[in-house]
């Protein structure tokens, strides 16, 4: 079996000057092939973030860079009640991750270890919802839970003559909607992680007298951890940015952070304030993402199947 990654040619013997070594570095085939996507990254990710950062230091209701720099927006956010929105967003996101992990672990385990040749078709069925727009799927929940004529209420009414009212417009339903929409994002990385667990190691642990729980804690969990972490992180970040769930299923009394941001950018027309709320959200998720990423070996996670 050949090595998967080929080694770049060894550097020439006479030590190159700084300029030459930069030139050599730039001519590495790896860097050359990375260039197109790095350019997209600069123009589509770094650029916008710099602009948001810049706007967050402008006085309120300015639309261009010609005002005085100020930190008023940040002071405003810290002194007003925005922390409630942050707590809702991060609380809901944490709860979503917890629910998704509990729900998806047995399914991932089944896909990786139990279902065998049925794993591929089951996987296909699980993928389909991911590609149906989340708005359509949330609308499905809306139809199910609709007051009076919804499918749940309609069924109980028809069968038992019960009027069950509606579950719509509550925070529990928002959470359910988020779990529903983001479950695949936990499910697939977790499956990837669990498929890295070698069967002989589990068997060996069993032969040495470990019970099911010990095998789970000492063998499966540590090996599958990178996949589980990536899944949780992805779910968490997407859930923090969730915008439709709360609007379609949730009550108007819960203002999540993405609504607060959207509100500043649209109705309130206060871009600087919206930008600084965004910066808070970006900073918190960013620290988390960079921390977790630094601890992952992507080659190992993606390189084995």
């Amino acid at each position, binding site marked *: 079996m050949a090595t998967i990654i080929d080694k770049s040619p060894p550097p020439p013997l006479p030590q190159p000057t700084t300029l030459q070594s930069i030139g050599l570095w730039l001519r590495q085939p790896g860097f050359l092939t990375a260039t*197109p996507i*790095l350019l997209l990254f600069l123009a589509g990710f770094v650029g916008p973030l710099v602009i948001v950062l810049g706007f967050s230091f402008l006085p309120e209701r300015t639309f261009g860079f010609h005002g005085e720099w100020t930190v008023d927006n940040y002071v405003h956010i810290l002194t007003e009640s925005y922390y409630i929105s942050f707590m809702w967003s991060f609380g809901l996101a944490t709860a979503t991750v917890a629910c998704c992990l509990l729900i998806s672990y047995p*399914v991932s385990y089944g896909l990786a270890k139990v279902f065998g040749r049925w794993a591929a078709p089951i996987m296909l069925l699980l993928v*389909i919802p991911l590609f149906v727009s989340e*708005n359509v799927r949330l*609308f499905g929940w809306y139809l199910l839970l609709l007051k009076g004529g919804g499918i749940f*209420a309609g069924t109980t009414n028809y069968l038992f003559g019960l009027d069950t009212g509606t579950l719509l417009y509550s925070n529990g339903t928002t959470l359910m909607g988020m779990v529903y929409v983001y479950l695949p994002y936990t499910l697939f990385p977790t499956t990837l992680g669990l498929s890295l667990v070698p069967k002989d190691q589990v068997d060996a642990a069993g032969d040495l007298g470990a019970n099911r729980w010990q095998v789970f804690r000492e063998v499966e969990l540590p090996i599958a951890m990178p996949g589980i972490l990536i899944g949780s992180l992805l779910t968490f970040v997407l859930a923090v940015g969730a915008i439709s769930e709360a609007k379609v299923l949730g009550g108007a009394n819960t203002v999540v952070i993405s609504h607060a*941001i959207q509100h500043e950018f649209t109705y309130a027309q206060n871009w600087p304030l919206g930008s600084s709320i965004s910066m808070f959200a970006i900073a918190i998720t960013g620290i988390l*993402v960079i921390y977790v990423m630094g601890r992952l070996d992507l080659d190992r996670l*993606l390189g084995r199947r």
Partner: protein
Amino acid sequence: MESRSKRWTHALIGVWTGVVLLFFFVPIAAVIISSFGKSRYFRFPVKSWSMKWYDQTINANLTENLHLTSLYVAGCVATIALVLGFFGALAFARYDWKGRIFYQRLIMLPIFFPQAVLGLALLLWFTYIGVLPTWEAAVFAHLVWIAPIVTLVISIQVYGFDVSQEEAAYDLGANRWQVFREVTMPALAPGLFSGGLFAFLLSWGNFSLSTYTTGADSTVTEWLYTKMSSGYTPMIPTMGAFSVYGSVIILFMGYIFLIARRRRAAKCA
């Protein structure tokens, strides 16, 4: 050596997976059921069924425009993301270069980023550099998020690619282009195929990025959201059902294509 408790656990896992599948598909089924209802407002149990909203939706000019916009965006995104992702994946998984570990983490950042915030940031950026929000701008916005995902999908294929095949082809006298066309491309084809499929469908279903960047051009998902937040019209379920049918058909075609390919490869080997 299958112990009894193990069989029980496996049965439970099967049942649980069934429950999760049900949880996944019940809302989608609800949309499809309601699209066949006759009345103006959805009531369950449905009293009378009809195709009249399908008729009306198909004949509306709006339907064609919305789907064309979605199609243009998704088509462009898939094509460009494939090219970027192909080269990005070579840098990600094939070449060992200084800076690769940093690069791997860097290009993951847009995936791990709240999408609504990214959409708004792009809107500000477009305003600042003077780009009007249109469907072309939405293509760019989608790419920022989708190209890294495609890179990851193709990378998984690249990791499994045996580089010595390329070297053997060079030794046999093939030039760079021939090696690329005859060895590298065929070996990576399944990854490219699933990458393209992912890109198309993710773009097709995207809302958070489109809503800030398409401007006057509206996609199907944007229309659905606007209508849903302003109340019920019978065209919502039909339009939603259309997009479900579309995604399912494309996915099944892709799945069958991949299975057929694998069969053929197995036969050749």
